[in-house]
Structures are given as C-alpha cells and as structure tokens.
C-alpha cells in the first residue's frame, strides 16, 4: 500500500508527513477554510468541543463561532440551512455526528439538495461529512454505511476514501466541487489508518479509482474499510491479485473497473455495507453486463450480512465482512 501512497503523494506539492486518516481530514478542512472564507462548518458539538471525533478540534479557536457553527439537534435544519447558505455563495461542510443520522435529514438531502441544479440550474456546493461504519460495538445506530441510499439519488456525489492521503485530497475536492457531496469517513479508520500525506495544497479528483495493488489473476474491488484488508489478503495469499480502490462511488470510475475486470477476468467486490442493492450490486451488474465475454468466473460479492449491525462483538464480527472471509473468497475465485 505504501508504495502506492508514495506514487499518490508525489502529485502533491508539500513535504510528506505521516498522518492518521482523521488528521488528514482535519487538515484538509482547516486548509480549505484558510484558503476560502466561504467555507464554514455546521454540525453538532463541532465548536468549542471540537466534534464527537475531534475532527474540528481547534477550529473554534482559529475560525470563531460563526464559521464553526454548533447546530441544534436538527439534521433537517442542518442540511436545509447548508443548502440555502451554499446557494448564497457559501461552502458549508456539514458534520453528521454519526452517518446514521443522515436518515433524519434525508429529505433535505435527496429532494432539496440533490435535485436543485437539475430543476433550476442552481448549484449547491456543499459537503456532508458522514462518520460511518462499524467494528467497534457501535450497535445498529452508530455503525451504518448509508452510501447505497445516496447512489440511488441523481445529483449527489459520493466519496469514500481508504487512505489518509485520499482523505485529504478527496475532501479538498469535495469542498471545491459545485455539487452536494456525501463524504463517507469510516470511524474505524480514523486512528487505525495512517499514511504519507503531503503538506498544503493536495487534491485528488472525484471520480477516479486508484489501483492500490497491481495484479493479473483476480481483481478485488473495494472502497473505504475493505481496501486495507484486501491489500493484506493479497499479500498473505502471495497471489497475483489486483486491488482497485474505488475512492469515488459517484461519479463511478467505470473505465478503471472494466479495464481491471477484463484484465484479470475474475472479480470480488467487497464492502462493509449490506449486500442487497449495495454499491457492490451496481459494480457487479456493471461488470456482468459490460465485461461478460472476458469473465473467467462469476463476479462475487463480499459484504455485511443483510441484518442491522449488532452490538455484541461476536455478533458484530459474524455480520461484518472479515479478512478471513475475503481470503476464502479470493481462494475460491482463484481456484475457479
């Protein structure tokens, strides 16, 4: 993975330091706020407290209460006010305290923000930060991965970085984009994932997947929390496995997906969200339709079971996809 990261970061200008995924998100946000006075944050407990996960730690002191706005417990008002402020030329970055709470602001996101430009030609440059994912006994309401809902909604961009560098580069792009962008940041990676990140200006374009590992026999298509396990599994199996990190789910880099699928002829799509109608369903359907002639094996999916994410560790582990399951799925496909 580091090899890839190095290639990545050479795109940046600044010196390279190792940051956690969370520090990288924080840095991108801080730098964008310094760069552009229109950028401001809106969310619960993000001010003096610095946010439930401390992503905006120190922001209140640097940017003041106006640009680091502590919102009431009202997600619809948060998203709706962000839409209005964005239309008036601001660049709001909303924080959902947990991604799960987007269900409480869902209507404003899917009906107001997403359809605005198509209907009226009014751009809505806003970002909704979504601390998502499970694996730490968050239970059914603090572990959800809601990206598939957004993917069914034309007008929303959706990104889900897997590395610290991408976390910084994609958030910068999301903030500069003229559309509503759902930014999925996996809570489990906040402190566990670290990597080289360039100082200062560093932008990763939305819509481009990243070949995290090159290989010729099998492609594992992953994003967010399943990328690191995919790389680990590939190493451990010592096979010629390619790992494609989607990074953006919308726009989806169909070119890279199909190129890799055609090259290896065998694909495993892996994500932490549930299976039915998940992003993996779309990717698998795409490959099955467009790369049919080149497939040497059925496209497999490795996802969470279609149940709420349970609290108790043994239950949660049984539900969420594990590296071992991925290894097994890769073996089966390689042997197919």
């Amino acid at each position, binding site marked *: 993975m580091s090899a890839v990261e190095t290639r990545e970061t050479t795109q940046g200008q600044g010196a390279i330091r190792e940051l956690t995924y969370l520090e990288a998100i924080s840095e991108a946000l801080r730098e964008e706020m310094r760069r552009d006075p229109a950028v401001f944050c809106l969310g619960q407990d993000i001010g003096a407290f610095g946010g439930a996960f401390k992503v905006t730690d120190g922001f209140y002191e640097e940017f003041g209460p106006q640009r680091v706005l502590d919102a009431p417990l009202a997600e619809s008002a948060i998203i709706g006010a962000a839409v209005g402020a964005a239309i008036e*030329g601001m660049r709001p970055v909303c924080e959902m305290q947990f991604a799960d709470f987007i269900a409480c602001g869902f209507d404003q996101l899917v009906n107001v923000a997403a359809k605005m430009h198509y209907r009226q030609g009014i751009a809505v440059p806003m970002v909704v930060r979504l601390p998502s994912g499970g694996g730490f006994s968050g239970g059914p309401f603090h572990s959800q991965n809601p990206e598939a809902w957004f993917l069914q909604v034309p007008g929303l961009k959706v990104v889900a970085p897997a590395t610290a560098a991408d976390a910084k580069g994609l958030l910068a792009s999301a903030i500069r984009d003229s559309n509503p962008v759902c930014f999925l940041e996996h809570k489990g990676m906040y402190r566990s994932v670290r990597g080289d990140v360039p100082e200062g200006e560093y932008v990763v374009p939305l819509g481009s997947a990243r070949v995290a590992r090159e290989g010729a026999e099998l492609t594992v298509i992953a994003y967010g929390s399943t990328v690191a396990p995919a790389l680990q599994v590939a190493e451990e199996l010592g096979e010629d496995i390619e790992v494609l990190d989607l990074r953006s789910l919308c726009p989806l880099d169909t070119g890279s997906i199909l190129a890799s699928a055609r090259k290896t002829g065998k694909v495993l799509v892996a994500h932490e969200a549930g299976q039915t109608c998940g992003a993996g369903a779309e990717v698998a359907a795409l490959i099955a339709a467009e790369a049919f002639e080149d497939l040497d094996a059925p496209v497999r999916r490795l996802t969470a079971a279609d149940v709420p994410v349970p609290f108790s560790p043994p239950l949660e582990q049984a539900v969420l996809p594990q590296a071992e399951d991925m290894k097994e799925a890769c073996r089966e496909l390689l042997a197919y």
Partner: protein
Amino acid sequence: METSVASAVVDRRANPSGERDLLERADRRELLRYMALMRASEERAITLYRQGKIPGSFYDGCGQEAISVGAAFALAPADRACILHRDLGAHLVRGVTPDRYLANYMGRAGGVTGGKDGNMHFGDRRLGCVGMVSMLPDMASVACGLALAMKMRGEPRVAMTFFGEGSTANGQWHEAMNFAGIHELPVVFVLENNRFAYSTPNELEFAVDPVERARTYGFVGVVVDGNDVEAVFRAATEAVERARSGAGPTLIECQTMRMHGHGAHDDMSYVPAEMRAEWARRDPIERYRSTLLEEHGFSADEIEEILSAVSDEVAAAAEKALAFPMPEPAAAFEGVFAEEFEPLGDGSAPWSRWAHANGDGANGGGPS
C-alpha cells in the same frame, strides 16, 4: 410632488411601521395591478389546463393574491425569496413574466425551468428566487440558510419564504423556526392560513394557531388580514426592516381562504357553502379596488384601464407561451450536476422606495 415624495422617503426611513404613508400612488397602482395580473394569469392557466395544454396537475392561489403580492412588495432587489404554490404574485413582483409562468405549466422550453419541473415548482434564480420543492415546508430551512449567509457576511439583506398553515405541522417547520430563533436570522416567514391543507381543516392540523408559537421560538408573531394587501404589505415591511436591522425573524400569519380546490381536480365539496360565500365577499382584489376608489382618489376609468391592460398583457403572454416549443428530449439528460457555481441574480423591486433608495444600501448592498 417632489417634496412630498422626498419627505415620504424620509418618513419611510424614520418610521417604516408608523402611521405615515409608506405607499405612493404609483405603488397602490402596482399592488392592484400585480394582484389582477396574478388572478388573470391563473385564470388563463386554468383555461389552458381545461384545454389539455397543461400536463399533470394544476394549483392556484385564487383568493390569496393579497398575500404574495403584499409581502413580496416589501422586498429589496438583493433580498431573496423562496416562493410557494399559492404565491404566483410574488414571482410576478420579483419579475417573472406571465408568459414564462404559463410556459412552465405547459412544460415548454420557454418556461422558467425549461420543462424540467412543472406547475408552481419553479423560481427564477436570475431574480433572486429559489423554487420550491413539493416537500412542505422544506424551503423554510433553505430560507434560513440564505439568511445565515447574509448574516455571516454582515449584509443588510433579507430572505423571505411562505408556507401554508398545514405545513406548520411538519418537523421541518419546527427545525427552521427554532434555528432562525437561536441565530436571530434575517428571515421573514409568511404563514398563509387558508383554513385547509388540501381537504384537512385547521382543527385536524393543530390544536392551537401556529402563530402562537413564534414567541416560543424567540421572535415576533403577528396576525394580519390576508385579504387586505396593504395590511400584508405593512406587516411585511415591518418584518423586513426588523430582519434587515438585525433584530431577527418574524412570523406573519395571514388569515385567508383558498377559494379554489387544492388542485384543479378538487371540487372542494368538503368546504361549507356559507364559508365560501362569506369569503367570496372578502375578495382581496374587489376590496382593494373599492379602497382605491373610496380612499385614494382613483377613478373608475383609471382602474378599468389598469385591469384591461392586465388582460391584454395576459392574452399576449398566453400567445407567447403557446408559441414556445417543447424542450428537446436530449435536455432531459443534462444538468444533473453543476459544472460551476453561479450566484443568484437580484429581483425586481417595484416598490417606489427602492427607486428613491438607490445607492443608500437599502437594497442590501448584496450582489447586484
């Protein structure tokens, strides 16, 4: 005249809500004209609907003309508005011409949304408007966001939005009111209590008149006769001045009645006949016409001339609208995402105050 105008201007500054007259003769003309223009445009649209030239469903604001006209008339060019489905008058005041309204209903390329959206789901971004979504009252939070941006930048500008009394039952309404109250946003909420939400009467929408709630959100709530255009205008002017001066939001409840069905398909069988008859006697246009005749020295001829000019305008607009082509199918696949950000433009502000106020910052000093 000059001096009286000048002094009038001074008066308006000194005491916007005071006894002295905020309106010049020309303003009153305009108030009548816009109400008549709304009525005539919607009547023309109903005909087009009956002729099968309007796809989908049809909604109008018959009987409520005084509200959208009177409230929008208080806005400055750089102010912003989220206009709802009973409020064609506000679109007209901000500068939307009837042909583009009719074309929008007919799904023509020349309509405000170019056929992307229909009926009242439009707003002209070049005129400082953000068109409504169907989900009620979502625009209330959007208006708060517009106001929040103005406040953050220290601009003396105001956002105005409208909603029906039924919409106040929705959680979105509460979140917007509460948020506006906490941050004392420069926003004006115009509540149109037309007695029904579709077929649902007030008593099934809430136990207490929602205007009572304004105080519990930390701002002023007032009730006005929604069929008296000058009363609505005065209340709106006070509210707009309050917002512009940094004193926070206002909730204005306009008491009125929806004189047509919820949509053209609705025969209003659920409305007692007496109720309809009683409100018919309070028709806002008829009432204002008498006011102008009796209190403001307008002649019957002058008023006739205003009204016939309106019907000529609407007739011409209909011709123009019918001449617009339908959009090209290819357009359906364009515009899901924005390539770049473009700010809203400013709206027309026909109130004479703004002509006099040029450059004194009263237009909000915003982008123009």
